[in-house]
């Protein structure tokens, strides 16, 4: 059985921080090695959850866009919202999930710009849903440690 990617990355991080960095005499190079160790640890954390985070985000953003579609006046934005809301993931590759995530985030910005200036109940509801999703997204993407 092959060791998983995150196991390999964490192992390399430990080697870098505990064996390589202390053996490096040049302070600048040593700090670079320590920075690489922190990046490997973050990459290990991200590897395991990357697809789940993006799938959850994309699903949540599509739900918001679908809810907004009903209220947005007919026209270009409404058409784009409707298409994006019904889109399915092209694959579970991170590049595909990221491409969809970018498209959905761009639309989320558009729809939030529209609703945050409105006093209508549906607009306030959508604005709250967007903030709930942004809060959840910040939590999902938070790295569990801070190296500074």
């Amino acid at each position: 059985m092959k060791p998983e990617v995150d196991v390999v990355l964490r192992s390399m991080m430990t080697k870098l921080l505990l064996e390589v960095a202390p053996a490096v005499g040049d302070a600048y190079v040593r700090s670079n090695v320590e920075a690489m160790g922190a990046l490997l640890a973050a990459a290990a954390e991200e590897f395991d959850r990357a697809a789940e985070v993006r799938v959850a985000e994309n699903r949540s953003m599509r739900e918001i866009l679908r809810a907004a579609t009903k209220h947005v006046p007919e026209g270009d934005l409404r058409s784009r919202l409707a298409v994006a809301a019904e889109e399915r993931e092209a694959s579970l590759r991170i590049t595909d999930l990221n491409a969809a995530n970018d498209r959905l985030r761009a639309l989320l910005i558009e729809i939030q710009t529209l609703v945050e200036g409105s006093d209508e109940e549906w607009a306030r509801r959508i604005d709250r849903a967007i903030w709930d999703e942004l809060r959840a997204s910040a939590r999902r993407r938070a790295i569990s440690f801070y190296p500074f």
Partner: protein
Amino acid sequence: MRELGDRIATYLAHRWPHATEVAVEEIERIFGGASRETYRVAVRYREGEARVQRRLILRRDPTSSLIETDRATEFHAYAAFHGSSVPVPRPLFLENDGRWLDRPFFVMEEVVGAVSTPKLLSEPPYVELLESIGEQKWRILGTIARADVSTIGLAKTLEAPALEDCWRRELDFWEKVIDDDELTPQPIARAAIRRLRRNPPPPPPRLSVVHGDYRTGNFLFDGTGRIRAVLDWEMCHLGDPLEDLAWALDPLWSWPDRERPGKLLPRQRALALWEDASGMTVDRRALGWWEIFASVKGLAIWISSGREFADERNQDPILALAGWFPADIHDRVLVERLAPEEEPL
């Protein structure tokens, strides 16, 4: 590194015509910053019969950096405050001619026997000195805010915006950095920017020197608890002094501790010290605006550094690190400020 040392010695011999046998004994690159390549340089030379040794810091323009800054701005800020109650290293030479070291650079004296690493504040002997270091930190920032921009000479080198335009100029600048450098759409930053534009702050009572990156990590402190020098003035400009105060108070600099900004004193004490030293009263609503702005500016810097790394213009690990960890935290801080819930994230 030896070749660079030899070229530095040649340059110094040119600038010090009274000196002979100029040689660089040691040269070491300093980690961090990334807005300049920074080197610690030990030099020796003869002055008549006397042997002289000096320790210098050389800051050279990078091929690419976190933020595009003007070396002259930083050099002039050191010159303006040197010898005042705001401690800074003594600036020596500003060199724009690329023939010496390929890129422009400036030279200043090294402040020896002091450190800047924030992590050290949780270790002896510094952990016992937080009160003293903290008091100086906030008083120095107040003193910078109080400085007369004309008297210290910065009115001649820095653009003076109209008081009512201070916020707009900064927000326009950093929004453009996000426009130019974002790798992915940024809904949190965009929402923050719209909020800031809808609710601008009142103009400051007067124009102040704004350091631009005043925080724990950008000043040198020693083992007696004395702040020896404020560094990294490359983003210095004239503007609203609350901009600096808000940046220094940002939760990132003490993460995850929210109680003691910059890992030093409680927030209310910091504000009181700043008010006392600056002679100004903090407008809490205006400070709230500048605190949201501080996190937007931070995000812009981290987005820019991530872009530099992703585009392979500069593969220094600090750029990837900056584009990842602090960006994540500033997103969280902004959501918390813009749409607070009972429990912090």
